C-alpha cells in the first residue's frame, strides 16, 4: 500500500547569529524520514526544541524545507509548481496549540468558518453559510456560537472552532501541533474523543505532535520520537513505548506524570 504522506530526508536549517554576531546555522530538522498511511494516526513526540513544530510547518507547506522531499499521494509537493501546491495545501490542515492566537479575535465564528470557503471560491454565499452551520454541528458546537467572537468562547469551544475551520475544506490530513496541550484534562478528553469519532467516520489521517506521551499512546498507531532534529526511534506505538530502545525515549516515558508516581527526588544529589 502506498503511504498517503512520505517524508524523505527532510532538512531545515535556519540562519541565525550567535551572541558575538557571527553567523551560525540552526539545524531544526536533520534528515527526517517517515511515512503516514491513510486513516491512521502518527504521533511525533520529543522535548522542546527537538524540531517537532518545524516538521509541522513543513508538512503544512508553511515553511520551505532546505532539502529533502515530502510526497503527498505520490506527488512531490516541493518539486511541483505553485499551482500544484495550491491543490494540495487545503488537504493538509494545521491546528495550533492555543486557538486564542490562531483565530482572528475580531471575527465572529461564522466569518472564521466561511473565510477558507471564500478563498477557495466556487460556492455561493448561501451555500457557504449552510456549510459553516453544518461544520459547527460536526464539531459539537451549537448554532448560537456562530455569532460569537473567539474571546466569548471557552478554551474547548475555541479549539473546536479551530478544528471546524480546518475541516471546512475537507482535508485528508490534520496536523495537530500540541492541539490539546493548553486544555483542561476533561476538555482534552472531549476533543480526543471527537478526533477519534471523526477518524472513524471520515477516515481522517492525523499527524499528532505532542509532548504528552500518555495522549500519544492513547490516540496513535505509530510513533516517531525526535531529538535535536533527528528521529531517534519509530515504530508501532505500543512496542516503542513498552520497550523503548533509546535513552531519550526512556527518559520521555519515565517523565510522564502518573497518578502513582514515586516521590520526586530533590535536585543536585
Amino acid at each position, binding site marked *: 500500500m502506498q503511504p498517503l504522506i512520505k517524508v524523505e530526508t527532510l532538512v531545515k536549517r535556519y540562519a541565525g547569529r550567535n551572541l558575538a554576531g557571527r553567523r551560525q546555522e540552526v539545524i531544526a530538522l536533520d534528515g527526517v524520514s517517515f511515512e503516514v498511511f491513510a486513516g491512521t494516526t502518527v504521533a511525533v513526540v520529543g522535548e522542546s526544541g527537538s524540531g517537532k513544530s518545524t516538521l509541522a510547518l513543513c508538512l503544512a507547506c508553511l515553511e520551505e524545507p532546505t532539502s529533502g522531499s515530502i510526497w503527498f499521494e505520490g506527488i512531490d509537493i516541493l518539486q511541483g509548481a505553485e499551482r500544484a501546491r495550491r491543490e494540495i495545501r487545503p488537504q493538509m490542515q494545521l491546528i495550533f496549540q492555543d486557538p486564542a492566537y490562531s483565530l482572528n479575535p475580531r471575527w465572529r465564528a461564522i466569518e472564521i468558518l466561511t473565510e477558507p470557503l471564500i478563498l477557495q471560491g466556487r460556492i455561493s454565499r448561501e451555500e457557504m453559510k449552510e456549510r459553516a452551520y453544518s461544520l459547527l454541528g460536526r464539531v459539537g458546537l451549537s448554532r448560537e456560537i456562530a455569532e460569537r467572537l473567539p474571546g466569548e468562547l*471557552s478554551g474547548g469551544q475555541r479549539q473546536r472552532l479551530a478544528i471546524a475551520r480546518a475541516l471546512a475544506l475537507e482535508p485528508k490530513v490534520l496536523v495537530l501541533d500540541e492541539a490539546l496541550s493548553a486544555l483542561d*484534562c*476533561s476538555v482534552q478528553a472531549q476533543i480526543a474523543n471527537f478526533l477519534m469519532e471523526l477518524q472513524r467516520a471520515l477516515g481522517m489521517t492525523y499527524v499528532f505532535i505532542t509532548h504528552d506521551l500518555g495522549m500519544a*499512546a*492513547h490516540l496513535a498507531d505509530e510513533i516517531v520520537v525526535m531529538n535535536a532534529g533527528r528521529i531517534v526511534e519509530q515504530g508501532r506505538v505500543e512496542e516503542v*513505548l513498552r520497550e523503548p530502545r533509546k535513552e531519550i525515549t526512556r527518559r520521555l516515558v519515565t517523565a510522564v506524570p*502518573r*497518578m502513582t508516581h514515586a516521590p*520526586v527526588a530533590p535536585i543536585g544529589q
Partner: protein
Amino acid sequence: MTSILEVRDLHVMYRGREGEQRAALAGVSFDLGAGEVLGVLGESGSGKSTLATALVRLLPANGRISRGVVLFEEKDLLEAAPEELRGIRGGRISLIFQEPSLALHPTMRAGQQIYQVLAAHGTAGKSVLREKTRQILGMVFPEEAERIARSFPHELSGGQRQRVLIAQAVACGPSVILADEPTASLDPTTQMEMLGVFRTLREKLGLAMIFITHNPALLAGFADRVLVLYGGRVVELGPAADVLREPRHPYTKALFQCVPAGLTGSGNGRKARLPAIAGEASVSDLPLKGCAYEPSCAERMEVCREREPTLLGVNERHTVSCFKYEK
C-alpha cells in the same frame, strides 16, 4: 501541625461588562501547615487562579473579596494596610506564575533580576546582596550558577527561566510560595526537573507551598495534601496519597478518569472513548440551588438538587462535599 496560613470562608466576586456580579469563589476554607505542599486541583473557571491572587490581594480591578479571612502569621491579610502588604508580598509570601518569559525583564541579566528583588526588600550593602544573589542562584542551579547569572532571559531555556523566577521568589526567604501552574508551559522532562527544584527548596528552606495545577498526576509524589476546587468551592480535601489513589467526590473521580492510561496499561484501552465530563466548571453556568456538580454528576441523587452539600469528614484528615458520605 501548626498552620502558617488560614483561609476562612473566602468569597470573591467579579464585576462583568454590564455591571453584573459573578461569584468566582464561594466560601473556600483551608489551612496550610508550615513546610507543607498543598496541591490545588481545578479546571478552567474553577477559581484556582482567583484563589492565588485573592490571598495576596492582587485581584484584577473588577474583582472584589466580598467576605472571608486570610490569616497569615496571625494577621488578617484582608485587613492589612497597603504598606504592610507590599512588605509581605515577595518578602514573606511569593508568587510564581505560568509564563516565565513574560515575568522576566528581557534586557536584564538573570543575576541582576534576583539582586533587585533583594535590594527592594532589604537594606543590606551591595556586597552582601551580591553574595546572597550568588547563594540563591547556586541553590536552584547547582552546576552552572555563574553562567546563568550573566545570561539574559532569551539565552536561557524555558526550564532555566522558570528556575530564575523560582530563585526570585525564594530570594527574601519567604515562608509561603503561591505557584499558579508553574510548570504548565514546560515539557514533561523539564516539569519533573522543576518539581525536583521545589522539593530541594522545601527541604533546605522549609517553605510551605500552594501548588495550583490542572494536572492531577503532577501532584503524585510531590504534594502532601490535595484540595480539589469545582465551581469556586472546595469539593474534596485530603492527604495526596489518599485523594489520588481513592478519590471520593464524583467530580474528582471523573477528573482522574479523563487522563488516558495508555502508558500504564490499566484503565481505558487504546483508542477507546475517554470518559469526559459534561458541562463546565465555571460558577456562572452552574445551578443556583443544590450541588454545583449535580448537572454533570454520574451519581446524583434527589437531595443534590435541593440543597448544597457541606464538607463532611470521611476520616480525620479527608473531607468531601457530597451527600453520598452523609451518615
